[in-house]
């Protein structure tokens, strides 16, 4: 039995430290620029904090990943290439890459640098994943959050590449790396700028008791008094189709696959990823601690595994009232 490794988000050094302290096997982080898909103000690492983070992780026996998971445009690859060079110089444990040109650069220039295929690559089948393996020697691939458990199992069975899946956190309903909705509305997307529905494009408008949430002028949702007004991520708003108003694309729910741990272990998943580099250190600490306990319990006795009430309530507390879903793992969701 492979015990899945726990891969946790580190938006900054305090988050990295609490992730390591609470039992993360890997922590993943990004630089303070558009080379990563959580390019948010006040977040991420510079050279000094990256170096300190790596020391801290290694001292505790954990590993560190640098996400360089956006797409350089036109002739702009230099900055992304420098990020790869810096990661190799630092002695980081692996980089998470999406762009084929960058994967090639890393494979050719830094043959000892371990490569993980980003979810932003949209590699949803083993033919695609095996191709990246043949061409660039990737060691691991992170699967987009669109596959059912049976489809995940089929991928694992047909590739030598380690497979990492998302276990918890915000949920893209679209195939990652294939969504231009944000740039359609705001000019900036995950692929181009490392952002989705960026905060600078959000405008809240109060009309009496009503609150309108707009993204670059587009009405994403409208909240009556007493309704919980969530962030206007554009695929999670209420829209009107054929005169019916509802969450036409996706409810504002987030992923929690903890109940599926025995099945994920059985399939042979190498690692489980927690989303949320933009979240607080307190969030990272709680989610890491609970998932560590769950994975350890499952490893000890998968047949008897069940989600303990304390874990569920602990996760619910940090989920800010959001519903949880099994997402695409669960066939019915489709």
């Amino acid at each position, binding site marked *: 039995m492979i015990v899945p490794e726990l891969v946790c988000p580190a938006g900054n050094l305090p988050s990295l430290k609490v992730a390591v302290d609470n039992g993360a096997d890997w922590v993943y982080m990004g630089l303070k620029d558009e080379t990563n898909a959580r390019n948010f103000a006040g977040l991420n690492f510079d050279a000094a904090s990256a170096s300190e983070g790596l020391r801290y992780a290694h001292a505790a026996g954990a590993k560190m990943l640098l996400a360089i998971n956006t797409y350089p445009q*036109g002739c702009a690859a230099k900055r992304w290439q420098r990020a790869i060079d810096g990661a190799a110089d630092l002695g980081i444990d692996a980089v998470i890459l999406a762009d084929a040109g960058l994967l090639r650069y890393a494979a050719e220039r830094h043959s000892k640098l371990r490569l993980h295929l980003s979810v932003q690559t949209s590699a949803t089948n083993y033919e695609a994943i095996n191709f990246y393996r043949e061409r660039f020697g990737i060691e691991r691939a992170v699967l987009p959050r669109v596959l059912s458990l049976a489809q995940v199992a089929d991928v694992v069975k047909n590739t030598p590449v380690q497979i990492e899946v998302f276990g918890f956190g915000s949920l893209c309903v679209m195939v990652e790396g294939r969504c231009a909705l944000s740039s359609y509305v705001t000019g900036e997307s995950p692929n181009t700028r490392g952002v989705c529905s960026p905060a600078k494009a959000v405008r809240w408008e109060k009309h009496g008791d009503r609150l309108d949430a707009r993204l670059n002028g587009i009405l994403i949702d409208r909240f009556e008094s007493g309704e919980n007004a969530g962030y206007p991520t554009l695929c999670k708003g209420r829209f009107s189709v054929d005169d019916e108003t509802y969450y*036409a694309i996706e409810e504002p729910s987030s992923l929690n696959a903890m109940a599926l741990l025995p099945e994920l272990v059985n399939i042979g998943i190498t690692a489980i990823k927690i989303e949320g580099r933009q979240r607080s250190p307190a969030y990272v600490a709680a989610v890491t601690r609970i998932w560590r306990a769950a994975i350890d319990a499952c490893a000890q006795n998968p047949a008897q595994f069940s989600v303990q009430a304390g874990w569920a309530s602990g996760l619910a507390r940090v989920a800010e009232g959001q519903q949880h879903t099994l997402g695409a793992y669960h066939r019915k969701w489709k």
Partner: protein
Amino acid sequence: MKLALGPVLYYWTREAVLEFYSAVAASSVDIVYLGEVVCSRRHNLRLEDWLALARDLSACGKQVVLCSQALIESESELKALRRIAANGEFTVEANEMGAVRLLAGRVPFVAGPHLNIYNGETLAWFAELGASRFVLPLELSRDTLRELQSARPEGMQTEVFAFGRMPLAFSARCFTARHHDLPKDDCQFRCLDHADGLALQTRDQTAFLTLNGLQTQSAQVYDLSSSIEELRSLAVDVVRVSPQSTNMPTIIESFRERCAGRPGAPLEGLRVAPPCNGYWHGVPGMEYRT
């Protein structure tokens, strides 16, 4: 510049598809992309039917390209993909990396709009794999295209999506089935009811998006018809127009004229929705700049 007709992104009846392509056969379009890109449940035409259509169009002087599906998740979809890749007769447009694996080094292929070719290094890699043409990702601007063209590999052709509702996103979830409160596996093929997709509006009645099964499109129609000279000056080889259910022959002829350097018929009143061209100008895609 050559004129290409992109694949039909919607689900039409078999009769509607055949009627559409008989008009296309008589049109002046140079290149025709055929096949199902969006959803493997859509089966009104099977691969054999697409191949028969491809041969007919080929006999009418059209260059035909078979498209692979943009999102491939299951073993049965991989099987279908392998048959397309091994068809032995027609060039294939690869729309995800599994298709690229099956084509690379074997036959020349078209690198489709969903492969994320955002920079010169990636474009060079695709050239080495055997791509003879690439389609610019929709969200990229003319400025980025200029940079890509400045370092374009020898023999690589450039195609730009220049007309039609834009395919902006793909999901494992079917939003049309969701609207009709049906599970995806038992969708009753409701996409057939929406020849140009299902309109999604904001709560203040702004046309925003179009639901097309697993695919989400813009509500507005991307329209670079007034930028054809610019496309030419950027050495674009192929201009793609994407099918809508009505007026397509007239739209094709208008683009044909424009590609030949003549003023084409105005497109006002012919599009299924108002135009946008923001991406081309490096601003939000939904905007329209004159």
